[in-house]
Structures are given as structure tokens and as C-alpha cells.
């Protein structure tokens, strides 16, 4: 479970999150949506310890992320937006490194390679991987962690439809097994029928919850937060 209480964050004079309260339950895929600048990525970064809140706390399975980061980090796995790697390392070397940090064996590495289709590129340096392959490598790293809290920031942006579908199936399966899954995305139409809950963030606060089965209709109906902008893929 992820629990955010009274979380605020400012960048200079601009307030990005304002006294945000949010609870993400286990056993469900929760979508976090909102316009650019709504605070989605900032919230996720605070939730996984990449940024500190000015006020409030985020707890992951009862552990305060800001106060006890290492212990909290052992409880979640995070997929950043457009992940990049040390350009001099091969896919296999990167996976082996993270597997060691997560206490996993080479078998787990091979399993992750098979799951995300990066096995054929194991000896290719990350600098030479395409955007989609890099994203799948990041997903392989992401899935190596033996944890039950999964946080993903725009996971489908570089993936083709087939791999997006596989990702959604993977996350649904993990949620069915009891994992807490939180996904921030612009591509909410694609998640229709695949999520259990959809939270709308507007100006740093939770402004609404959408029906998970009517995401496409809701997307086109809400001009404030859903109007496509330059970095929202055209639909």
C-alpha cells in the first residue's frame, strides 16, 4: 500500500503539489492521470524517494520514504519515464548488476530477459539499443525486484502496441497476485478495462476519480486536464 498524507511541493514560487492526500490499495492497478504540470511525475518522484516533499509524508508498506529510504526502497520497484543506462554496459551486464542488488540469481535475469524480449540483445551496449528496447530493458530491471509495490511513470510511451498490451497484462496479473500497482500516464484510453481505479490530478490535488470502464469517453469529455498538448501522443 502507498499512503500519501498532506504532501506539498514547490519549485521556486510555483506550487506543484498542494496538501495531497492519496491512498493506493494493494490488489489493484491504479492509474494517475492529469494534464502536463498537474504534478503526476513530481508525486511519483516523491513516492520513490527521488525528491523530497516540502511538507507531508509518503509511506510505502508502512515505511516513510523520506525518513527511511533504503528500507522503503526494498519494498518497491520503480520504472522512470524514458529510462536511460550507462551507455558502456550491455543489457546483460545491467541486468546482472541490478539482480545482484535485489538478491536475485542468473536464472531470474534470464527469466526477465525472456519476459521482456531482450535476450537476443544481451550483448548489445545500451547506447546501441532503440528507445523501445531500452524501455523493455528497464522493464526487465523493474520486474527483477521481488517486491509487491510497483510504480511506473509513463511506461508505454516508447513501446509498440504489442508490448503495451503485454505490459498491461503483466501489471494486471501482478495486481491479481496482491501487488499495489500505480501507473502515471497520458495514454489513459489504452488502459480502459485494464485498471481498477483512475485518479485525476489537477493543480497538485486529486480533483476526481474516473470510471475505469469509461476512460476513453471521460478523456474526451474533460477539457481541463485531458486536452492534448505537445507531448501528449496524438490519439
Amino acid at each position, binding site marked *: 500500500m502507498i499512503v500519501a498524507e498532506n504532501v506539498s511541493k514547490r*519549485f521556486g514560487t510555483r506550487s506543484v503539489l498542494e496538501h495531497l492526500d492519496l491512498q493506493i490499495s494493494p490488489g489493484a492497478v491504479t492509474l494517475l492521470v492529469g494534464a502536463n504540470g498537474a504534478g503526476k511525475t513530481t508525486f511519483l*518522484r516523491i513516492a*520513490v*524517494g*527521488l*525528491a*523530497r516533499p516540502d511538507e507531508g509524508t509518503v509511506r510505502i508498506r508502512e515505511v516513510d520514504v523520506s525518513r527511511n529510504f*533504503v*528500507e522503503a*526502497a*526494498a*519494498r*518497491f*520497484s*520503480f520504472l*522512470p519515464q524514458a*529510462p*536511460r*543506462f*550507462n*551507455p*558502456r*554496459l550491455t543489457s546483460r*551486464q545491467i541486468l546482472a*548488476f*541490478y539482480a*545482484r*542488488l*535485489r*538478491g536475485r540469481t542468473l536464472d531470474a535475469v534470464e527469466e526477465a530477459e525472456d519476459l521482456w524480449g531482450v535476450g537476443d540483445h544481451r550483448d548489445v*551496449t545500451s547506447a546501441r539499443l532503440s528507445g523501445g528496447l531500452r524501455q523493455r530493458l*528497464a522493464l526487465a*530491471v523493474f520486474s527483477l525486484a*521481488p*517486491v509487491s509495490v510497483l510504480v511506473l511513470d509513463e511506461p508505454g510511451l516508447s513501446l509498440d502496441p504489442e508490448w503495451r498490451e503485454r505490459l498491461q497484462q503483466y501489471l494486471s496479473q501482478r495486481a491479481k497476485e496482491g501487488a499495489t500497482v500505480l501507473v502515471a500516464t497520458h495514454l489513459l484510453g489504452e488502459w480502459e478495462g485494464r485498471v481498477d481505479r483512475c485518479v485525476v490530478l489537477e493543480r497538485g490535488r486529486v480533483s476526481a476519480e474516473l470510471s475505469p470502464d469509461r476512460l476513453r469517453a471521460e478523456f474526451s469529455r474533460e477539457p481541463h486536464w485531458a486536452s492534448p498538448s505537445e507531448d501528449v501522443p496524438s490519439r
Partner: protein
Amino acid sequence: MSIPAASTVVAATLQREWLSQRLNRFFYWHVGLLVICGLSTLIAPPEAAARGAAWWILQVVLFAISMSSLLLGLSSSHAELDEMSLLQTHPVSNRSWTTGKALGLLLITFPTALLLVLPAALSQGPAWLLVGVAAAAGGVSGVFSLLGLALGAWIRDPVRGLISAVALWLGLLVGTDLLLLLTAGSEFVQSHPRVWVLPLMLNPLDAFRITVLFTVEHAAFTGLQAGGLTEWWLHHGGVWLTSCLAAWAILAWLIATAGTARRPDA
């Protein structure tokens, strides 16, 4: 749920550093420079050769190896920047990560410094003098690679990082000496010579220079009988250089750890 032991993180990071350096052009430049400079001791001009391989290696370390080591460390730090947002969400302490990187760099720079003296040792026969100079050169090289690591952890823009590295190198190579030259004649310095000597002792390049010239090579210098701090230094050059380099290495490691701990929004 598992938190890896610090030793696991250090070992994994060390291995990662080595694998990463295998494709680092700065590493090959560094090794190439060591080989060329080592071989050049065999073809040095007669007057330089007469002063011995140690004198030649001193110049090479001051003007080339220190710089290439600094760039090696800087490039090592910058290679990881893109991945930090993924790495920093793993249950890994910044201290263990930086220790792994630092040990990886030291294990690369220290042994490779042997390449500087290998040709001379093979042609003239092994000598303790050369072993001492190689160890000192390895120490200087290691410290500068850690300074590069620290610089890269704080200055994340590659161009600014490069400019800062050159500025730091110039500052340590000639900055201290120029400052001391300018202040040498002042009344205060004349009456407090220790204050004047201390910056020289604390600068790793000057400490290396003085140690090789006066302790290893035993160059003639009236300061040997000067008394006070200068005399102590010159008679304990090896011990002082070792302590000075160890202190700089620890300082660089601390700065690198603090820099790594900074989150992107800090």
C-alpha cells in the same frame, strides 16, 4: 523484500566500474599515455636520461598522468548520470555505491602506473627507486581519478565538468606555486616560513614533486638543513606523501558521496 549488504553493493559496483571502463575511451588514452611515457624513458635526450628515469617520470605524472586520471574519474562519474534516477530508487546507500566506484577507479589507476616504470626497470634492471616512484605515481593517479569522480558527482553538465576539471588541475599544478611565489617576499611569510611551506605540503602534486626530487632523487637543496617543518618534511617525504594522498583520497570520496546523494531537484 531484501536490503543488500554494503559489501554486496560495493562488489557489484566495483565489477560494474571495471566493465564500464573497458569501453571508456579515456581509459585507453590513459593507458596509452602511460605506455608511451614509460617507453619514452628509454629514448629520453641524454641530459634528461642522465637525471634518471625517476626525474622523467616525475615530469610525466605532473603534466600528463594527473590530467588523464582526472578525466578518467570525471568520465566514470558522468557515464552513470543518466541512470541515477533508476539506481537511486534501489535499496542502495550512496556511501556503498561511491565506495564501489572509488575502489574500481583505484584498482585501475594504481596498478597501471607500473607501466610508467616497466620499460626502465626491464632495461636497467629493477630498482627500489623505481618501485617507489611507481607507487607514488600510482597514488597521485588514484587521487586525481577520485577528484574527477567527485567533480562529476557535483557538476553534472559534461562541458562544465570538463572546464572545471582543467581549472582544478591547473590550480593544483601551478596555482599554489604562483601564489607562494607572489607572497614569498612578504614580511609575514619571511617571519612565518611554516605558513609558506604548508600549502606546498598539502598540495598532492607539490608533495609528489618535492618527495621525488629531494627524498627519492636526493637533489641538492639547502632546505635539507633548513630546520623546522621543511627539514622534517624532506626527511619524511615518503611518509608525508602517503599521508597526504590518503587524506586527499578520503576527502574526494566524501565529496563524491555527498554529490551522489544530491537528488536532481536539490
